């Protein structure tokens, strides 16, 4: 790059910064709009991560419990386990003996002596069970079909537990997540378009305000890029400022939220996880925010200058 070009580039940046300062009052609307857009984007990203986290949390706990009659012999049990392993969608099988079940029960009820008094190792009403973890918790049909076979059902002391309530919750969250993802994408697109329109208009006004200067620049032999560049630098700065504002607002919100709600769940949104995710990914989020801000700013001013600066004569 020649020295003159370098000087020109430096002046384009300098003039962009000067114009940014000069135009700040006109630019406020554009910056505010872009900050809102970026904030919505950030919330969408964080909410999405949180929902997936919640779904993972719940699905990893979902399982199928098969309660065995006390009369089931060891070979029968091993055969059943072998058969189950061959069933589609079965990830793992854990055998819980009557004793283990009792221990867990005792542990869960240490502060309830009445319940404990009724049972002991000699009088153990709890059945042994097989704990099946599925690969895909939303589709337990194959497992259910197998367990419902008469010869298999005959081995069971109690009806199979499918963690049915959890499945309903997962379905609900999955639907909600999908809805939020779709609504989020549409919302983000709408807001990006609105902020681009506002920036476009801001630059149009700036071009109009400075039309004398631009005509003179052109007549004195300024290159199109020397005239256009500062407008683009200016809107790129809108993007950077908007990203910083957005990040500041979100940071404050998460800080306040995690303090007051302290890791409690807020509906389906686990605020604790959200704010953890936010602070863990702060740099990535900042980079994304700033890059998107820059892209929105540069694209809209590139369009506006193309449309309103008559540079080719």
């Amino acid at each position, binding site marked *: 790059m020649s*020295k*003159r*070009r370098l*000087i*020109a580039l430096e*002046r384009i940046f300098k003039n962009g910064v000067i114009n940014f300062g000069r135009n700040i009052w006109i630019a406020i609307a554009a910056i505010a709009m872009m900050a809102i857009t970026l904030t919505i984007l950030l919330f969408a990203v964080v909410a999405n991560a949180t929902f997936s986290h919640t779904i993972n949390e719940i699905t990893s706990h979902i399982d199928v419990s098969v309660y065995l009659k006390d009369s089931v012999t060891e070979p029968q049990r091993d055969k059943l386990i072998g058969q189950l392993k061959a069933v589609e969608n079965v990830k793992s099988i854990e055998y819980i003996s009557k004793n283990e079940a009792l221990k867990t029960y005792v542990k869960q009820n240490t502060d309830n002596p009445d319940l404990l008094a009724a049972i002991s190792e000699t009088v153990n009403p709890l059945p042994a069970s097989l704990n099946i973890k599925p690969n895909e918790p939303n589709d337990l049909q194959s497992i259910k079909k197998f367990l419902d076979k008469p010869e298999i059902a005959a081995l069971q002391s109690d009806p199979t537990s499918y963690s049915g309530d959890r499945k309903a919750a997962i379905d609900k969250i999955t639907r909600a997540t999908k809805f939020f993802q779709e609504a989020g994408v549409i919302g983000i697109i709408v807001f990006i378009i609105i902020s681009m329109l506002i920036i476009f208009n801001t630059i149009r006004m700036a071009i109009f305000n400075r039309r*004398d*200067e631009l*005509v*003179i*620049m*052109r*007549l*004195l*032999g*300024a*290159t*199109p890029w*020397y005239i256009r560049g500062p407008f683009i630098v200016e809107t790129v700065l809108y993007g950077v400022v908007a990203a910083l504002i957005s990040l500041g607002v979100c940071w404050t919100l998460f800080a306040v939220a995690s303090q007051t709600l302290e890791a409690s769940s807020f509906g389906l949104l686990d605020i604790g996880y959200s704010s953890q995710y936010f602070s863990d990914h702060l740099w990535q989020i900042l980079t994304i925010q700033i890059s998107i801000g820059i892209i929105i700013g540069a694209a809209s001013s590139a369009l506006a200058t193309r449309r309103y600066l008559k540079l*080719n*004569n």
Partner: protein
Amino acid sequence: MILLDRVTKTYNRRGPALERISLHVEPKEFVIIVGPSGAGKSTLFKLLTREEKPSSGKIIVGGMDYERLNDKDIPLLRRKIGVVFQDFKLLNNKTIHENVAFALEIAGIPTQEIKHTVPKVMDLVGLLGKENHYPLELSGGERQRVAIARAIVRQPKILIADEPTGNLDPKHAWDVIKVLEKINRFGTTVLLTTHNQDIVNTLKRRVVTIKDGHIVSDRAVGHYKGV
């Protein structure tokens, strides 16, 4: 230095603004172009600065054939031609120094060199010491001299002055003309349009008269009888 060969410029609605104009200007010449309003003088200047393209004909300025110019050559062309306008076209929110420096900044001249060059040009147009004033604090004649300073600061081979005295009283008009003569003595080709009969007749320079888009006379030491 300037060669127009059978140049015609037709705007869409009206008839031709210029029709088959041929003009040859030697280096270092001082040419006055006269003619009534709407005769085609401004169109001629717009063709020379490539604000307009000719409908037909050939234009060569300083060795550059306009037919072969790309869009990206136009800024370079304009840096080689100094232009002065009737309405000055100064930036009123910039100081005199900044206005003149502006032309150099656009051309990518280093800041140090700009600081060095601008005062010299201010001296040439007789405005040394007024660099920190704003245009609106100056008289019309002074403002036009700032515009001339801006036009010549890049040492163009050609200076085009479109009615530079049009808005000025006689005393200030003469100040401006004297600066143009001085620049011409230093070797710059000057093209001047004016309505001022007094100036034309006193200067005793080549006078080209344009009327209705045609050159009706071209005299080495011309007179102007008004319109």
